[in-house]
């Protein structure tokens, strides 16, 4: 599913403040696998997720998703790939506070030019999976942290991506909501999604729904 080989990322290449955030990463993630990417702050988790999401390009190395060289796609093609195959759940949720829950979730579909009817169907479906249907007409600014995250989950699912990337999904949640998030991992699994979760939260240790934990330290994978 996701094949990463000899991948390096240097920020500010050719500048005095060049910084190597990822060193020779080799990683193979199977379809429908749920993987935790564990590492302290600054270890390169977000950088790796952003590269898989085609939000940034590596400095060298290969990223192949379903046989396609993703890292080498020109920008417009990269964003097509992202819109079709990647659902991203950010630590800060990245929702539009003024819009309603429903509209936030519909956003990724609106840009595809899909008909309003199928948009509505898919949004309802995603809200059901994420357990946020009851708040659909509320504006996001009135939601609690846990509800915001469920909204973000629904948005990440609404275009039915194969791959779901979560960057520190529980960093802004209390314990109860963190446990709820861990429950949704089971649903991702039931839907056959390939999931990568970047976190340093010990709540993810030894979970049944996690297939593998990969440890990243100073931009290097030390155990996988």
């Amino acid at each position, binding site marked *: 599913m996701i094949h990463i*080989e000899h991948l390096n990322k240097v920020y500010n*290449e050719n500048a005095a403040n060049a910084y190597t955030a990822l060193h020779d990463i080799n990683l193979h993630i199977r379809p429908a696998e749920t993987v935790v990417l564990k590492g302290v702050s600054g270890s390169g988790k977000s950088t790796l997720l952003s590269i898989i999401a085609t939000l940034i*390009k590596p400095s*060298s190395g290969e990223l192949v998703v379903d046989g396609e060289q993703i890292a*080498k796609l020109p920008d417009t*093609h990269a964003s097509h790939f992202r819109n079709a195959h990647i659902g991203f759940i950010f630590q800060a949720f990245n929702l539009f506070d003024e819009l309603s829950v429903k509209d936030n979730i519909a956003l990724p579909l609106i840009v595809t030019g899909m008909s309003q009817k199928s948009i509505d169907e898919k949004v309802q479906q995603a809200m059901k999976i994420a357990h946020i249907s009851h708040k659909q007409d509320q504006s996001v600014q009135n939601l609690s942290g846990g509800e915001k995250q469920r909204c973000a989950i629904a948005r990440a699912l609404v275009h039915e991506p194969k791959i779901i990337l979560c960057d520190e999904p529980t960093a802004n949640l209390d314990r109860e909501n963190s446990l709820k998030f861990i429950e949704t991992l089971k649903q991702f699994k039931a839907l056959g999604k390939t999931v990568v979760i970047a976190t340093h939260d010990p709540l993810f240790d030894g979970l049944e729904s996690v297939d593998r934990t990969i440890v990243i330290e100073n931009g290097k994978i030390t155990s996988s």
Partner: protein
Amino acid sequence: MILLSNEVIIFLFVEALLLLLQGIAFVNAVGILSRWDFAASTALQYRLEKRAYLVVLIILFTLGFKMLLLPYFSYTIDQLSSIVPGAMCGAGVISANEYGPPLLSLKVLIVFLTGSWLILNAEDIKASSYPYFKAKFWLFIIIFILVAVESVLDVLYLVNIPTGDPVSCCSTIYGAAGSGEPLPFGLDIFRLLILFYLIYALILAASFFR
């Protein structure tokens, strides 16, 4: 001195700027082409891909601008007809010296190649694996060489427009006086046919690639 005409100064200034930009793109294009290997995932190749994106933007900008400069050139030449004795329109001015007619043909050729480059680029961008990457960079290299020749000819032509001796006026050129060539800009039937088929091929190519 004809060079002091406002239009000529503007024309040469803009052309010099574009030539400079294209020169930068040319140096980069040669560097990129010589090391380009799309299959590679090396740091070099990633850098080249990033650089190629910028170079293509410069090429796109300068070629687009050059397209606009051609009508301006015609306008300039037409304005000069008021200074050049005997000339009543651009057609007379263009044949004022031996550089004029080949310069005009070269300009037309460059427009065709530019059009082809734009088509090639549009196709290349549509695909995700740069299928026409090398072709479009080679084509640009050819265009740049022609543009460099064109710029030299432009200067030679404009410097050598006589302001003393009369040139043929439009009525002789268009054959109204009975003896001149019947076609504008000194084109003969043969060259006109070539032009026609070039346009034809370009239209065909354009619709084929759409």
